[in-house]
């Protein structure tokens, strides 16, 4: 009885021979010999930020190899979008990167606008910028909270979510939904913001700077935090570029690349803001860059709000944009447009476009291929989480397990964004 149990134990701690064959090319020879331990981290693990599975090869606590296994959250969003008309597919975009719903809406609608050559009224452009930047702040807040929570600084998490809540309230005020907004539509916005919107945003602008200071007081100079982040996960700029890393992770490696600056969209060129970069290339640099981005986003929101023009928020091109409710009752033509747009959908010209925005995580691109029918022939998302995830095995090498959870946090992956 006892000897049986011990035998079983040995098999458990090394790997069964046949399953090892499949893994041989991924792990080192030492794992095959049984010198190192293979540990399965996730998909149900509290700090893999969703359902990421990592196969770890460990020597004691040291990570020899880290093999990400993605696909546990695969929802078939890209394929689903091909089965819906262009406008109706917007609801799918909310569910991609669930921390950047409005950013996803924006990227997709910009692609459609490019495809159909649709104009967006200036008020809608400015509101898009405000909402996208608020979304960036809320996404960074979730990142900051969970990043700190991964290091067991639990209070920061709740403080961040407190402020995120007020941003989500603003989104709810506009779109009726906290997260699944579907607020940005081809040719503008679903409808104008309510009258309370401006006050709510101004209130947030007033409160938030002191709240950033509060987070910074808890972390920025905390020796325990510095110890956990300094010189952890070094990402040299050339490696970052090789792997196609974008977003704050790239900028913290000293590469000044931000789509809002290099190919401005939605009128970002009118606003005065800095792109924070850092040359330390470590987790702490990425932290500092994102914290500075919070300040910059606030700055952009403030400018956009100050010169927010009046006017319509949706294009008048009735071939693509449904008429407002008020017109339907009085205009026969409007009724026909409404009926056609909501049953058949609009038919963009044949062609393909790629359009990208700077999401909180990096370059978020949409590739649309149109065959002239009301449904897209092909939708492909170039998501920053998926691309940035590739860097994890590189970063994790020879770090400790404790650092690994910090590294998952620092590249800020959203699993909904990884598995489309």
């Amino acid at each position, binding site marked *: 009885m006892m000897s049986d*149990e011990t035998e*079983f*134990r040995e098999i*458990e*701690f090394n790997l069964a021979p046949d399953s090892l064959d499949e893994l041989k090319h991924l792990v080192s020879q030492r794992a095959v010999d049984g010198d190192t*331990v293979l*540990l399965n981290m996730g998909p149900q*693990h*509290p*700090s893999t930020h969703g359902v990421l599975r990592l196969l770890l090869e460990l020597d004691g*606590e040291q990570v020899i190899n880290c093999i990400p296994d993605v696909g546990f959250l695969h929802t078939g969003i890209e394929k689903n979008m091909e089965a819906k008309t262009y406008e109706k597919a917007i609801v799918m975009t909310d569910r991609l990167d669930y921390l950047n719903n409005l950013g996803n809406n924006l990227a997709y609608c910009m692609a459609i606008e490019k495809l159909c050559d649709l104009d967006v009224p200036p008020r809608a452009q400015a509101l898009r910028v405000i909402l996208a930047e608020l979304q960036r702040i809320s996404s960074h807040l979730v990142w900051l909270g969970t990043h*700190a*929570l*991964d*290091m*067991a*600084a*639990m*209070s920061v998490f*709740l*403080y961040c979510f*407190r402020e995120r809540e007020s941003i989500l309230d603003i989104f709810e005020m506009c779109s009726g939904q906290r997260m699944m907004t579907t607020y940005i539509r081809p040719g503008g916005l679903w409808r104008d913001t309510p009258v309370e919107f401006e006050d709510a945003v101004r209130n947030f602008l007033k409160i938030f700077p002191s709240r950033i200071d509060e987070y910074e007081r*808890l*972390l920025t100079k*905390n020796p*325990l*935090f510095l*110890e*956990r982040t300094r010189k952890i996960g070094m990402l040299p700029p050339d490696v970052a570029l090789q792997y196609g890393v974008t977003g704050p992770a790239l900028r913290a490696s000293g590469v000044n690349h931000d789509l809002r600056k290099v190919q401005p969209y939605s009128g970002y060129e009118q606003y005065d803001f800095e792109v924070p970069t850092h040359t330390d290339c470590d987790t702490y640099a990425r932290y500092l860059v994102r914290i500075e981005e919070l300040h910059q986003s606030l700055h952009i929101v403030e400018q956009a709000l100050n010169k927010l023009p009046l006017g319509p928020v949706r294009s008048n091109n009735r071939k693509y944009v449904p008429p407002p409710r008020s017109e339907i009752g009085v205009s026969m033509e409007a009724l026909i447009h409404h009926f056609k747009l909501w049953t058949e959908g609009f038919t963009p010209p044949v062609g393909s476009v790629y359009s990208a925005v700077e999401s909180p995580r990096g370059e978020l691109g949409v590739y649309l291929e149109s065959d002239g029918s009301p449904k897209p022939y092909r939708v492909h998302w170039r998501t920053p989480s998926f691309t940035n995830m590739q860097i994890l095995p590189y970063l994790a090498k020879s770090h*400790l*397990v*404790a*650092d*690994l*959870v910090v590294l998952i946090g620092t590249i800020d992956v959203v699993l909904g964004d990884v598995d489309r």
Partner: protein
Amino acid sequence: MAALFWESLIKSLIYIVFLLTSFAYLTLTERKFLGRFQSRYGPNRAGPFGLFQPIADAVKLLFKEELIPAQADKILFILAPILTTVPALVMLAVVPFGGTGQLFGRQFSFSIAGDINIGVLYILAIASISVYGIVIAGWASNNKYATMGGIRSSAQMISYELALGLSFVTPILLASSMSLNDIVKAQMPVWFIFYFPVGPLSAVIYLIAALAEINRSPFDMPEAEQELTAGYHVEYSGMKFALFMMTEYIKMIVLCVIAAALFFGGYHGPGVDTYWWLGPIYMFIKVFMLLFGLIWIRATTPRIRYDRLMALGWKVLLPIALVNVVITAFAILLFPGLGSG
């Protein structure tokens, strides 16, 4: 003799019940305070101000299924929670919660085991037993996360025991006694924490080492939720899990009681000579303040990394503690009045 036996029995009973209740309400206190620290309410559903929350928790855990993993070592798996809990419970037996009291015309002392002249050694000895429970729990679960947690904790506890033991030496030298009763009495005019610089230094070393010893944040490596899911008790459920939690919180109380006795004058306070019942109250207040400090630490600090923790223990705390002991010894030699107790 028989009377003494009954006295001890009654005292132990009161003490165990008191400890278990205070454990239960410590969890509530912690959750309440953490809630306030984090701008939320904490538990407030069960009973007025959430006062019945610990009872609800206990009932829930009692009715949970006791899972034993198929490939776990069953005997050790069941033994481990017992091995961790019992030392935590008996550790306080030597600590005086008050002077001598008078009840029903009988003199009695507040420490359960009476006045043992090696009280401090007793505490150290018992404290080191509980590491077995954790290692065995980690091993018997037959789970890699649990094993890692067990290994981490054994390394951690063993390295911090040295600094912990050395931090005890300063009060022992200052009181020239190993009996906790004498140590408390020696602090009659001035608490040891005010014996600058050795007093505060050894108190700080004690608190850091003790935090590591009981696996409390920011040294909660063995159960690092974010890394090892739950560490050594990841496979435990129901009451066995509750026993581990209980141990953790009881050890928190024990840590604070010992700190109060060694550095903060124990049960001393104004008026305690006239009214003996003030002793336990002063003790309670001091322990509560220290516990509040622990909760505060948990709410604010990130977790230290495992290798840094070992470095801190061996390269920082241990040398400082050694130097501190030497300074204390020299000070006592130079000023003979110091070590008279």
